[in-house]
């Protein structure tokens, strides 16, 4: 019922706006030829909504999350709605191409919160009923039981934090679910959104070996849907795990071992028909995440919720330059600000032309397809990829060693090069800065 009502509402609140939308979802067609600063880039955006609360703290996580002392949910919902409207108004985007509910643990939010935010979106902008709406799910029995209601609220894609299929590892990581519960949640999600379920898995976990990882991955491939996100566990300062490693209680696998795990996962996933479309994302049957893809393609996004980041031109106040925006971090303070001032933006920094191109480059190169000439031209109409990168010795070496490819399609990493992207990017950034500063 809710779903139908919402669709009706979307139609009602979209006064004839055209959106460059493909039939498959929120993906924007590539052949539209427009300039940076023109509607192509500034009239649409994706939306990220941050739910900051968690039931407990995972041992590895230093993300912006809070264990709530009291039930703030109704207030949080109200503020998320208000801020969504504020930022949509400010950005003047006419079309939201995708929505992503992340956290924290957004599957702790009541489905009505999700519905409410989506309604707010539809009130201010066009949100196609085919637009991708993803929710991150913690695979506990409670999370599982709410999936259907989330679907009714408008969610059409689930990203499930399976992390590991080893019970012991889940305990070390401080997760509050078992492998069995995770598998059940995946099954239920697939039933509700067939072909639109992603699983998150983590490698490089304490004491993990390359061999056990390979087995675990095979097991996962038997049950997963068409999308896998692969993360290496990074040891962050200030986490419990960091202390344990420092104190010698826990050992992390060596660099060479995690490198082997990564390569092994890439091979295995490839053999099962999964295409690696980004450094840590794999999809089959074209089930890529449109929302995340729009980050890598350098498109506008609006971030709502404590600590959320955004990148957009505030056309509502006459802005013409893209801004990097951050919302206030602490949920209580954020709520107060939204209530009192009508917005929770803490920081806004105008991106220079160079900074914008740097982001486009860094994010674009994460995709296995890299940056094609049209994509680059959208942001840098004056200076093509060949002109920026074609002349440098450093880059010639990368091209010759086969790690980087620059051809008539564009600039991208080779299969081997992608695993070394962070060694390649500094060379590209140095060259970009040199070329841009020469032109200025």
């Amino acid at each position, binding site marked *: 019922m809710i779903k139908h009502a919402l669709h009706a509402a979307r139609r009602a609140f979209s006064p004839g706006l055209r959106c460059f939308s493909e039939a498959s979802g929120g993906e924007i067609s590539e052949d539209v030829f427009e300039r940076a600063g023109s509607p192509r880039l500034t009239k649409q955006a994706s939306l*990220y909504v941050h739910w900051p609360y968690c039931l407990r703290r995972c041992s590895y996580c230093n993300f912006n999350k809070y264990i709530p002392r009291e039930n703030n949910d109704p207030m949080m919902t109200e503020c998320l709605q208000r801020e969504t409207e504020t930022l949509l108004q400010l950005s003047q985007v006419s079309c939201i191409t995708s929505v992503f509910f992340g956290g924290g643990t957004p599957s702790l939010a009541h489905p009505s919160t999700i519905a409410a935010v989506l309604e707010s979106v539809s009130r201010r902008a066009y949100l196609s009923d085919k637009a991708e709406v993803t929710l991150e799910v913690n695979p506990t029995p409670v999370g599982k039981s709410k999936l259907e209601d989330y679907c009714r609220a408008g969610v059409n894609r689930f990203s499930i934090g399976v992390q590991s299929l080893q019970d012991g590892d889940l305990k070390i990581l401080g997760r509050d679910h078992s492998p069995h519960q995770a598998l059940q949640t995946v099954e239920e999600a697939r039933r509700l959104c067939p072909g639109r379920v992603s699983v998150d898995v983590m490698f490089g976990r304490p004491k993990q070996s390359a061999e056990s990882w390979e087995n675990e991955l095979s097991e996962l491939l038997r049950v997963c849907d068409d999308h896998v996100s692969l993360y290496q566990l*990074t040891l962050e300062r200030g986490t419990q795990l960091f202390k344990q490693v420092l104190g010698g209680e826990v050992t992390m696998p060596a660099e060479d071992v995690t490198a082997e795990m990564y390569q092994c996962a890439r091979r295995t996933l490839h053999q099962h028909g999964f295409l690696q479309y980004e450094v840590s994302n794999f999809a089959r049957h074209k089930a890529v995440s449109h929302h995340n893809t729009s980050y890598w393609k350098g498109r506008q996004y609006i971030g709502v919720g404590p600590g959320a980041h955004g990148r957009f031109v505030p056309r509502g106040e006459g802005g013409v330059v893209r801004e990097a925006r951050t919302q206030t971090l602490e949920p209580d303070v954020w709520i107060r600000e939204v209530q009192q001032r009508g917005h929770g933006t803490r920081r806004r920094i105008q991106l220079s032309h160079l900074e914008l191109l740097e982001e486009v480059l860094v994010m674009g190169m994460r995709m296995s397809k890299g940056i094609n000439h049209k994509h680059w031209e959208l942001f840098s109409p004056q200076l093509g990829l060949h002109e920026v990168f074609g002349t440098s010795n450093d880059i010639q070496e990368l091209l010759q060693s086969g790690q980087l490819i620059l051809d008539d399609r564009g600039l991208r990493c080779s299969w081997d090069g992608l695993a070394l992207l962070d060694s390649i*990017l*500094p*060379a590209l950034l*140095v060259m970009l800065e040199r070329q841009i500063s020469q032109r200025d």
Partner: protein
Amino acid sequence: MTYTLLRHRWMKRLPVFSSSSMVSTQTDKDTIDLSKFPVDRIRNFCIIAHIDHGKSTLADRLLEMTGAIATTDKNKQVLDKLQVERERGITVKAQTATLIYSHQGQQYLLNLIDTPGHVDFSYEVSRSISACQGVLLIVDANQGIQAQTVANFYLAFEAQLAIIPVINKIDLKNADPERVETQIEKVFDIPREECIRISAKLGTNVDKVLQAVVDRIPAPMASTDDPFKALVFDSNFDHYRGVVANIAVFGGRVKKGDRIVSAYLGKTYEVNELGLLRPHEHPTQKLFAGQVGYIIAGMKDVKEAQIGDTLYLQEQPVEALPGFKPAKAMVFAGMYPMDQSEYQGLRSAIERLTLNDSSVTVQRDSSMALGAGWRLGFLGLLHMEVFNQRLEQEYNASVIVTAPTVPYKAVLSSPKLIKEHGSEEITIVNPAQFPDRSVVSEYLEPMVLGTILSPDTYTGKIMTLCLNRRGIQKNMVYIDDQRVMMKYLFPLNEIVVDFYDLLKSLSSGYASFDYENAGYQAADLIKMNILLNGQPVEELITIVHRGRAYSTGKAMCERLKDSIPRQMFEVAVQASIGSKVIARETIKAYRKNVLAKCYGGDITRKMKLLKKQAEGKKKMRRIGNVEVPKDAFINVLKRKDK
């Protein structure tokens, strides 16, 4: 026994004195009538000792007891003016203080010259000694004779000075003056009865030291009837007044307004100010034969006050005194600003510091890795450390100091090269300029004679260490039933970096070490290259003894391996002699270097990190295709952290 308390310039700074005291100070100056001190009532002496044996504390007591400074608890190392001296408890720069002392109804002028303890500064010691007739040789009652005690003793002994052994710190719980007297008897052949047991800290028996100075040290051989003749034994530079020269008057008298000549330059100057150092400058009207003091005569450049120079009156030329051999740099190190933008600042800091330490040689140098800098020559390791510390503390300059090297020599065989260099023998300070074997008939390396004193339980370990450093034992003597003195001939190169630290650690701090230069010896030296993926690294060229090439090369490769980050390809770090590789380490290629996830909320942080890497990349030094961070070379080149 009475001590004359004179008011002096130093006291002017005390706040209790009102401005009217200026007048009395003025008259006080005239109360020292130096003509009242004939030569036979003058004693010139210095104090020599191993580090920490209490030389400066004794000097403080002597100053207090003769009223040169007020007696308070705050007099700690009054003569050690430099921060580095106070921190390290060492004396770097000789200081002079004139004490007025009453003994058996007579007033004596005692000129105390406080000298550095370490033989690195033995040029200071020998200069000071030339102005003295006697020395106080201080030995710690607990530690006994140490390496520098021996070295300093011989300096005084060779100069034929009266030596008064003083055993200090008898108040300590573990003091064993008996044993130290035995050592003094055995090592220095001085009868034990001549030793004076004191506690400089508590002042115990310090008066006996003063009596001994008067009784046992001969008066200087000088006559006021001779023409004026003075030795410049030290000089300082003052920005306002120019050069302040410390002089010992060997004959005649000099007064304000006299026209004097420098025998070295032949230049004439007019005396503007002269006086005693008590230890602060105390102007007087005249200085007489046998006395020690300072003179300011309009010299604008330190080079005009050449140490060892003779001064005489314009109208009465005299034959110049023998002077000193210039101090010779024995340890060289590169010094570079941490950042090239600090080059000018560092340059002026080095210039100012060398104004007061003419024994440091300065040569411009540049390195691909470290940029523009200097190669500085020092008299020894401590000298280098002290210089560096003064640079950092007094001039707030942050510097990169490369591993010290020694001056090698090569005897050229090619007539063409001999003609080019103007001599058959050349000195090589920069390893990059090491001439090829084919044009050289032999290489020479500087040698030192090292003295090690240690409890005999460590003898075995010490001998092994010395053997590993190509040391040749010259002799070994028990100075008492537990302590051994060993003499070794070492190549200087083998002891410049970490020898002293190793010696200290293997003897739990009990062994002491000192050395004196012992000329040059033929050596089988070779040039070692460090290669990165086959490309030689100019700044890492090292001259090594053939027998030590492998271990040195291996150590350098290991240090480089640890400080060069992984690259996208494998990097071979090699040490080679000619075309032959003698050591190798491999830096494995990155197999993966990419952050696991990057979404909307991660961009800002990720960009910051990458921009920092891109900035760092610009500063990398490229050797072939290998990118090397600057600090990688610094890690290899600099001295090891202590």
